[in-house]
């Protein structure tokens, strides 16, 4: 698993620190760049990243003119996506190790 994550070019911690304080970018551009979605950097990504991208684009499309958007404490969730994601038994099982009901012997 570690090797897989090591290959990930986008989402690198160092890059985020750099983009975060680059004031020539808007926060949105900085994030896009960090996710590696800006232009050329679309190499093969893992499935879960692709899912993230989808929700991200959907979200930004819906909000339209984001200059006039109010700030929200709770991010806007796409509930159809969430319902699809969490009604899937595998996703729930994958999250199980974050709960006290997890089988510890199996996991460690």
């Amino acid at each position, binding site marked *: *698993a*570690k090797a897989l*994550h090591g290959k990930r070019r986008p*989402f690198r*911690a*160092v890059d*985020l*620190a750099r983009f*975060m*304080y680059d*004031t020539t970018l808007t*926060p*949105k551009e*900085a*994030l896009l760049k*960090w*996710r590696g979605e800006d232009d050329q950097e679309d190499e093969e990504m893992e499935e879960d990243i692709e899912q*993230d991208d989808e929700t991200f684009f959907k979200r930004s499309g819906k909000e339209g003119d984001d*200059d*006039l*958007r*109010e*700030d*929200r*404490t*709770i*991010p*806007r*969730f796409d*509930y159809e996506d*969430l*319902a699809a*994601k*969490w009604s899937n038994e595998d996703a*729930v099982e994958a*999250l*199980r*190790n*974050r*709960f*006290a*009901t*997890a089988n510890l012997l199996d996991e460690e």
Partner: protein
Amino acid sequence: MSGAKPEFVRLTGHRAFTQRLVLSTLTGRPVHISKIRSGSPTHPGLAPHEVSFLRLLESVTNGSVIDVSYSGTTITYQPGLITGTVPGVGASLASDLIEHVLPAACTRSITYFLVPLALLAPFAKAHMNVRFSGPGVITSGTSLTGDLSIDTFRTAVLPLYGLFGIPPARIELRVLARSCPGPGGKGGGGVVELRFASQVRLPKTLHLNRRPGRIRRIRGVAYCTGVSASHNNRMIMAARAVLNRLVSDVHVAAQYDPAPLVGDKGSAQKKKIGIGFGLSLVAESSADGVIYAADEVAPPEGGVVPEDIGTRCAYQLLEVIAQGGCVTAAAAPTVLTLMAMGSEDVGRLRLGRDVLGREEIIGCARDLKAFGASSWGIRDAGDDEDGASELIVSVKGTGVGNIGRKVA
């Protein structure tokens, strides 16, 4: 405090308005915010809730100077001392409370005011006792503007202050009347009282960089105002259907209130507003101070069944838990700000990638830097199998602390 020639921190835009003013007040640096919704053809300038927040700031500080331009698109704010509630100044003599009346046009939940107020309160000179009333107090979450409900604020944000040596036992939040958003998402009729009696010299340095632990139990509050009390049970049933597979210890309290009566201006007749229902869920982890929360409320125009609210809230909670880290996205600005205001020591905080990679957090980092805090250090938390998706943020405190208090 500001010298003879104050040097303004210049910022633009209406985003993170309260956060910027809070930072300005805490660091004592005057701020100049321009281009506030200047591109909006219909509603340029400050919105009612922002004006109301400015008034609130004025009443809990002494010597603040606020200038709003004619069009409302530019403001300058020179912060004063955070006095808290001093009898005779702002507060009426008979009580030890500052009464803050929110206008009927307010579309934000009360937590829009409480979150920044709670950030100021530990640094106040005296106790911070504020009562919010008036036709604009919405205690539920808001679906249009995405604010937290007061239950989530109380159970998932206030306990975090304990990690900073600010005892939550001395913070009291009373909900005297509940209200959901009124017609069009505007106004409510609630009454909320915040008594913040734990003032500190400096917040402690926070080290929340361990694994976030496992979820042990889920608590929550289902609330209905002015609708059938059975909505509560329907929401709870739906949420439990999702969550019981993962945790058996799920307890959701049901809170039913009649709709608040609010009088119109100029007429003796009162009408019921703020009808609605919602659910707030909080997951507690085995690690100290790690809390995940989710909030869902029926939109003011209606048309959503309670079962949907319940399942959506449960799904949202699962999503928030899956994002990982020790602090959720909703509470992260509070925690990061308190860390930055702490002693000159490096604190560490573990956050999920999706939590840190939000525009709000990046804006928060830039604002903190603009107000003189140091930059964050970010590195991977790659010490275990969960660590791959999480980051550790190192925040160096500025040692600003509380100017009003000389002894700890």
